[in-house]
């Protein structure tokens, strides 16, 4: 996400960093570099020019003060970060629930932006916050949009109000109206109305959207927009604003390499904030949108906050406190605990998505993209093929035990060895952390995560087969490797 933009920013800044004192020419130069990067990211031209002008003005104004500081380039970086956060919407805004339920949310947008998928994601998100949402199928245009919404609704156990079959049959306005009445009767507190996708220039469909709006008077109209959209984004958004109007923006398909520049333009042009970001194919791939976090992501600072929150959400509190207790008491971290962590990680969703949130993730982008989520399953299979005794004390794992585990999990003995090696390295590291020796170089993550309220040991070093250069793979390899498993086990213990 925004990766290209991120790498352009970092190259622009590294040239700035090499300079001690900054001259106004340096500021202009970095301004030009950022400008080119933003244009290639589909940010609307006039938005770019205003943004660059602000950065240059502010930097020049502070130039004297900046040069007195220890790190002038850092000060400029801060200015860019602040402006970027501001352009991304400043403070984040959330869905406001109506005083008198149900809260009505209406989804609009261009065709193919991902409204129907998003309706499901939004419903699930609101449901897990304790609401009782109802989905209303008012997209009667696209073939089988109604069926799609029904399937999505069934998968997340959210009821779908769909009295009309769709495919051009039925009146979307009366469906929306009836849906609202249905929700009032059955006491659903949120109604999400999915409407037909339309092109900005299609007046007929725009009028239909206006009629739906007037029939249900939504509390929030959300404009759903594809992160990959180009310069037309502004035109489309303006057409929608002039037509049906909207209160907030939802960005979809942010998991690709789209730089999402057009989305920034919409915000600047319409003044409407981005409320949510959708980042994957699964219903849970949905996040609140945080302008400050997105800004640090663009600038390559990572997004530890989101990662920590996701971790917290997926690990039940019992497991967390048990692990924390163990950590504090100085008990050894065992494979049983590791298994619990693996479970939690699987609940957190795609590994590659999480890894992408780490600071400096851009540098190992290729590895992250190629991360095989099945690696988790394989690792889990290996641990599950161990007896409780083995899990709690991996030292007992001799050659024949390892051979049995390999057979039981359907993996190679070498993979079992590899896992055990990496696990003991991780165990050692945990001990070091506890004794306050800190992290080995380059292992900033778990420490950072602990600070963010991550459960102790939630880090990924143990056996998480991220292709090199991952912390796991740098685990010290024993030099003497006997061909005889039994002998090797003896060497290792």
């Amino acid at each position, binding site marked *: 996400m925004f990766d290209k933009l991120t790498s352009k920013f970092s190259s622009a800044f590294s040239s700035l960093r090499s300079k001690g004192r900054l001259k106004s020419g340096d500021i202009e130069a970095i301004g030009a570099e950022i400008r080119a990067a933003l244009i290639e990211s589909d940010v609307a031209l006039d938005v770019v020019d205003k943004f660059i002008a602000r950065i240059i003005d502010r930097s020049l104004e502070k130039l004297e003060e900046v040069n007195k500081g220890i790190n002038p380039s850092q000060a400029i970086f801060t200015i860019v970060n602040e402006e970027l956060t501001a352009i991304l919407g400043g403070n984040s805004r959330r869905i406001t629930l109506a005083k008198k339920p149900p809260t009505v949310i209406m989804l609009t947008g261009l065709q193919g932006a991902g409204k129907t998928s998003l309706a499901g994601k939004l419903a699930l998100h609101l449901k897990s916050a304790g609401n009782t949402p109802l989905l209303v199928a008012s997209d009667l245009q696209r073939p089988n949009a109604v069926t799609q919404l029904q399937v999505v609704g069934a998968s997340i156990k959210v009821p779908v109000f769909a009295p009309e079959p769709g495919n051009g049959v039925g009146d979307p306005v009366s469906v929306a109206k009836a849906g609202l009445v249905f929700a009032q009767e059955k006491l659903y507190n949120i109604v999400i109305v999915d409407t037909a996708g339309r092109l900005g220039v299609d007046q007929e469909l725009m009028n239909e959207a206006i009629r739906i709006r007037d029939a249900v008077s939504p509390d929030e109209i959300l404009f759903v927009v594809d992160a*990959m959209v180009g*310069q037309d984004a502004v035109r489309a958004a303006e057409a929608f604003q002039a037509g049906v109007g909207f209160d907030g923006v939802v960005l979809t*398909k942010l998991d690709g390499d789209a730089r999402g520049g057009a989305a920034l333009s919409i915000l600047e042009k319409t003044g409407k904030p981005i409320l949510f970001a959708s980042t994957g194919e699964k219903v849970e791939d949905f996040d609140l949108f945080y302008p400050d976090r997105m800004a640090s992501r663009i600038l390559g600072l990572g997004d530890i906050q989101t990662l920590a929150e996701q971790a917290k959400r997926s690990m039940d509190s019992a497991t967390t406190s048990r692990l924390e207790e163990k950590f504090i008491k100085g008990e050894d971290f065992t494979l049983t605990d590791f298994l619990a962590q693996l479970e939690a990680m699987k609940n957190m969703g795609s590994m590659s998505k999480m890894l992408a949130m780490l600071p400096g993730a851009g540098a190992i982008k290729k590895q992250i993209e190629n991360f095989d989520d099945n690696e988790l399953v394989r690792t889990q299979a290996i641990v599950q093929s161990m007896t409780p005794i083995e899990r709690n004390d991996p030292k007992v794992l001799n050659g024949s035990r390892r051979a049995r585990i390999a057979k039981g999990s359907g993996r190679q003995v070498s993979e079992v060895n590899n896992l055990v090696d990496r696990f003991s390295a991780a165990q050692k590291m945990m001990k070091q952390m506890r004794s306050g020796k800190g992290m080995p170089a380059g292992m900033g993550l778990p420490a950072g995560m602990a600070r963010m309220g991550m459960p102790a040991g939630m880090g990924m070093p143990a056996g998480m087969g991220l292709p090199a250069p991952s912390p796991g793979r740098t685990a010290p390899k024993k030099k003497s490797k006997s061909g005889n498993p039994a002998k090797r086990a003896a060497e290792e213990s």
Partner: protein
Amino acid sequence: MALFSKIFAKFRGGAIAPADWEEFESLLIEADLGAHLTGEIIEISKELARGRSSESGDIEGALLHALREKLSPASRSIPRADERTTSIMIVGVNGTGKTTSVAKLMQYFKSQGASVVVAAADTFRAAAIDQIQTWGDRIGVPVIVGKTEGDPASVAFDGIKRAIGDHADIFIIDTAGRLHTKSGLMDELGKIRRVVEKVSPIDEVLLVVDATTGQNGIAQAKLFAESVAVTGLILTKMDGSAKGGVALAIEATTGIPVKFIGSGEGAGDLQLFEPELYLKGLISE
């Protein structure tokens, strides 16, 4: 918004200020040509202007010529195999209009008197199978389906078997939308291709690109081409306000030609790509 015609008038008048060039640049960028291609076109135009500013030359024609040079030289036709079924695979990112394009292709080939079989290998998106089946029923084309969440390659395999059994002229595979950055999903496309090619070769792989797409379209084309050797593009949603300038940028960088233009929601809304019309559209208002 600035207008091309205004710029052209200034060119003809011979008085071109730096601000005019900037305006010209923003027009090209706003058509989604991208900063790189725009830069090239501006350079060419500046050269043209130097040569022509004295006379009231045909700057519009010269610009069209410059744009034309950027088009791919590859053939834009869909050649049909003589003695066997011609197989076409449809790929693209989510929401670009693949399934609708498949429906339009069904109609297109049917109206040419060809017999068509379709495999609904989008087993991922909820109700995608129903969507394509609805179209198949409307147009009168058999649609081979598998289970939702089933293996798309096996659906494609069943499809090609059926197409060969029926002696169908055209076999079309609708695949699930996927982001070009997901290498696992991209490998799946290669698998579909290999499995089908055990029975009969795939003649065309058409990448569906949304006309509203920005510079990301170039990355899409490059990565899809790496995975499945894309032979052509279908540029969809050309009935909106987007001019689809990214298609020219894609042609210029990858050499993959646009073969079809989709411009509406009806099954008949598919045209063969006409370069001249497209280029004129780019520099019209």
